[in-house]
C-alpha cells in the first residue's frame, strides 16, 4: 500500500488515529492514519460524503477531531485555533473579501501578522506578478472572472509563506478548459516553490494530473494511498479500481488459486485467469476489473498466448474523436467497454459477434461489489 514511499522525508503532517463524528452516532472519518511529507502534493480524493473535506477541515482547524491527534511539524495541533496554525487555505468559492481590493486581499495575511509596510508591499507585488495580475491590483473581487479570483485566492494563501497549503476543491466552479489550465499552473507553482499541498477533490483526473500521492477516501476510510500510476495499475479493491479511471467489472467465483493468479468462473459463462489481488479464497465471489484500453478485439479463435478470450456481442459504438468505445455484452455485463482507435469502430455492427482478449495481468480479481 505504501509502495510510493521511495524517498523518506520527515512527515510534516501526521494524522494519528483520527475519528470524527458530527452526530455522535455515525463516524464521518474512521481511524485515519496519514502522513504527509514536506514538499509533497497530496490529494484527498473521494465521492462526496467520504470524509475527505472533514479531514481537510480538521487539519485547517475548523473542525475538532472526536478522537486522535494531528501533528504539524511534530507539534500536536488538535486544540490550536486556526489562525495560529500557519496554514494557507484556498476555499471552494475562493472566499475573497468582497470589500477589499485584490491588493488588500493579498496583503491581509501580512497585515494581520504585522509585516512592515514596505516589505508587505514588496511581497504583494511579487505575488501579483506570480499570478500575472499586476494590472488588476486595485480591482475588487466582484470585477474578476472565476479563474482570476482563483489565482488571487492562491496568491493570498501563499503570500505569507505558510508551511502548508490546503485547497478545498478550488477548481470546482471553473469550466473544463480553465480548470485544466489552472491544474497545470498550480502544479508548476508547487514545483517552483517547494510548498506542501493538501488538495481535496472528487475529480479523479484532477487528482491524477497534479498529485504526488493520492489518498482515496470512501465511507470515512482511506481505501488506498499511493502514487497516481500505482493507484491506476494496482488498485487494492474494487472501489479504487472503479473510482480511478474507466473500469469494466465482471463478477464470478474463484475456482482455483495458483500463487499470484487465480481461475475465476464468470457469472455469465466462461472462465478467465486473473491476478489474485483481493480475494478471500477458493469458492469466494469476486469482481474482476479490466481497463477498457487493455482489451483487444481478436478474430474468433483459440488462445495461443495465454490471454483470456471471451465471446461478446456488439451493443453500440461511441465515437469520441481521438478514440472510440465499443460497448459490448460480455458474460452478462451489457456495458463492457473496449477502447478502440478511431476508425476501428466503423466495421462493428449492432448484434455482431466478436471476441475480446485481455492478459491475465490486466485482469484483477478484487473484492465483490
Amino acid at each position, binding site marked *: 500500500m505504501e509502495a510510493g514511499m521511495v524517498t523518506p522525508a520527515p512527515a510534516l503532517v501526521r494524522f494519528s488515529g483520527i475519528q470524527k463524528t458530527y452526530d455522535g452516532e455515525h463516524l464521518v472519518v474512521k481511524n485515519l492514519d496519514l502522513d504527509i511529507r514536506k514538499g509533497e502534493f497530496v490529494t484527498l480524493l473521494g465521492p462526496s460524503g467520504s470524509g475527505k473535506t472533514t479531514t481537510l477541515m480538521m487539519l485547517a482547524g*475548523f473542525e475538532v477531531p472526536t478522537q486522535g491527534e494531528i501533528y504539524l511539524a511534530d507539534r500536536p495541533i488538535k486544540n490550536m485555533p486556526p*489562525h495560529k496554525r500557519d496554514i494557507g487555505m484556498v476555499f471552494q468559492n475562493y*472566499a475573497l*473579501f468582497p470589500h477589499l481590493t485584490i491588493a488588500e486581499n493579498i496583503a491581509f495575511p501580512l497585515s*494581520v501578522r504585522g509585516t512592515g509596510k514596505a516589505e508587505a508591499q514588496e511581497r504583494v507585488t511579487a505575488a501579483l506578478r506570480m499570478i500575472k495580475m499586476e494590472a488588476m491590483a486595485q480591482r475588487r473581487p466582484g470585477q474578476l472572472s472565476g479563474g482570476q*479570483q482563483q489565482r488571487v485566492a492562491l496568491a493570498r494563501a501563499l503570500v505569507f509563506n505558510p508551511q502548508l497549503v490546503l485547497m478545498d476543491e478550488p477548481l470546482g*466552479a471553473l469550466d473544463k478548459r480553465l480548470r485544466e489550465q489552472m491544474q497545470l499552473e498550480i502544479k508548476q507553482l508547487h514545483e517552483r516553490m517547494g510548498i506542501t499541498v493538501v488538495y481535496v477533490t472528487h475529480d479523479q483526473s484532477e487528482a491524477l494530473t497534479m498529485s504526488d500521492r493520492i489518498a482515496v477516501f470512501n465511507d470515512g476510510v482511506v481505501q488506498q494511498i499511493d502514487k497516481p500510476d500505482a493507484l491506476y495499475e494496482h488498485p487494492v479493491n474494487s472501489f479504487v479500481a472503479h473510482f480511478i479511471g474507466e473500469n469494466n467489472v465482471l463478477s464470478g467465483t474463484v475456482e482455483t488459486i495458483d500463487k499470484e493468479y487465480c481461475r475465476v468462473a464468470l457469472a455469465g459463462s466462461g472462465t478467465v485467469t486473473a491476478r489474485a489481488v483481493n480475494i478471500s479464497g477458493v469458492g469466494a465471489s469476486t469482481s474482476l476489473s479490466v481497463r477498457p484500453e487493455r482489451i483487444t478485439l481478436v478474430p474468433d479463435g483459440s488462445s495461443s498466448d495465454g490471454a483470456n478470450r471471451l465471446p461478446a456481442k456488439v451493443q453500440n459504438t461511441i465515437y469520441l474523436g481521438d478514440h472510440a468505445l465499443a460497448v459490448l455484452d460480455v458474460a452478462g455485463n451489457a456495458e463492457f467497454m473496449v477502447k478502440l482507435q478511431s476508425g476501428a469502430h466503423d466495421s462493428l455492427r449492432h448484434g455482431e459477434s466478436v471476441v475480446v482478449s485481455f492478459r491475465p495481468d490486466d485482469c484483477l480479481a478484487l473484492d465483490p461489489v
Partner: protein
Amino acid sequence: MTASATSADASTEVPLKRRLRRAERARQVKALALVAPLLVFLLFTFAGPIAGMLWRAVDDREVRQVLPQTIAALAEWDGKELPDEKAYAALASDVQAARASGTIAIAAKRLNYALNGFRTILTSTSRNLKTAPEPGTAKETLSKINPAWRERPTWTTIKDAGGPITGFYLLAALDLTRNADGAIVAAPPDQAIYRSLFARTFIISLSVTVLCLILGFPVAYLLATLPPGKSNLLMIFVLLPFWTSLLVRTCAWIVLLQSKGVVNDSLHWLGIIDEPLRLIYNRFGVCVAMTHVLLPFMILPLYSSMKAISPAYMRAAASLGAPPLTAFLRIYLPQTLPGIGAGSLLVFILALGYYITPALVGGAADQMISYFIALYTTETANWGLASALGAVLLLATILLALVYGKLVQGQQVTGGMKN
C-alpha cells in the same frame, strides 16, 4: 449571410435601435399598466398630501382675503414711517366689510401669530368702529380706538402677512423672525422653542438608533448563524411585536415601568432599591419603549446583510492568520455596513416621526416634533406652522437619506462568492 442581412437592413430603412424600441414597447406598456394602480394610489395618498403640506407651509392668503384694500394700499409703503391716510382708510373699510362677513377672526388669528396681541387690536377696532370715518380722519379715528395703530410694527405685521406666499412659518420653525425692518433675526427667547425641539427629536432618535444597533446586532448575528430550525423560531420572536398594536405595546411598558410597576416591585422585593425608581414619564422610558418598538426594523436589515456573508469569509480570515476579533473587525463588520446603514436610517427616520410613544410614556421635556405638529393641526389649527415644522423635518430626512445613499454607493460591493 452577413452581406444579405446588411442589405435587408438597408432596404427596410428602419434602424436597429428603433426596431429594438418598437419590440420593447409592448412590454413597457404592459409593465406600466401593472404599476399604474400603485402609482395613482401613491400620487393621491402620498405625493399629493406632501405637496399640500409643503404648500401650506408657505401659503399666506388669509389676511389678503380679509383685508384686501389694506394690503393693496400697503404695497407701495416703504415701511420706514407710519403709512399714510390712504392705508388707514383702506383698513377701516376692510374691517367694516370683514365684520359684516364675519371673517375678522381669520385675519386676527393669523396676525396674532406674528405679533402677540394683534387679535385684541383687530377685534377692538372692529367692535368700536361703528361707522366709516369721515374722509381724512381715518388715521385719527383708528388711533383713538387703539393706540397700536400709531405704531409701525402693527403695520409692518399686516404688510408681511399680505402674502400670497410667506417665509414666516418656515422662519418660525427655525426660531427666526423678521423684525420691523424686514431683516431676518433670531426669534425672541420665549418663542424660540423649535430649534431645541428639533435637537431633542434628533437626540432621542439617535439614542434609540444606537440602542437598537447595540441590541439588534447580536440578535441578527444569531439569527444569521443559527441552524434554520432555531433561527426560524427566533425570527418569530423578533417579529412578534409586529403582531401587537403599537398602543398595546406602549401601554405594556407603562405597566412594567411605572412606580408601582413590575420592574420597581421586583427590584424592591429583591432589596436592591428602597424607593421606586423613576423609570417612566422621562427620557429613559421614551428610549426604552421606542427601542422596543423599533428593534425589528434594525434587526431585519442587519439579518439580511449578515445572511449574505458566507461563513467562508471568517474561515478564510482565520486561515490567513487573523485572530477572531481582528477577523470580525476587518472582515465581518465592514460587510455588514450596508445593513447597519439601512437599519440605522430606517430606525432613525421612523423615530423622528414618533408621536404616540413619547406622548404616552414621556414627560413634558420628552415630547418630540410630531407632538407639536399634531398640537398645531388638531388643537390650535395653526396649519402653517404645523406644515412648516413638517417641511423642515422632511427636508432633514431627505438630506439624511441622500447622505446615506452617497455613502452606500461608495461601499457598493458585488461580493466574490459565486453561490
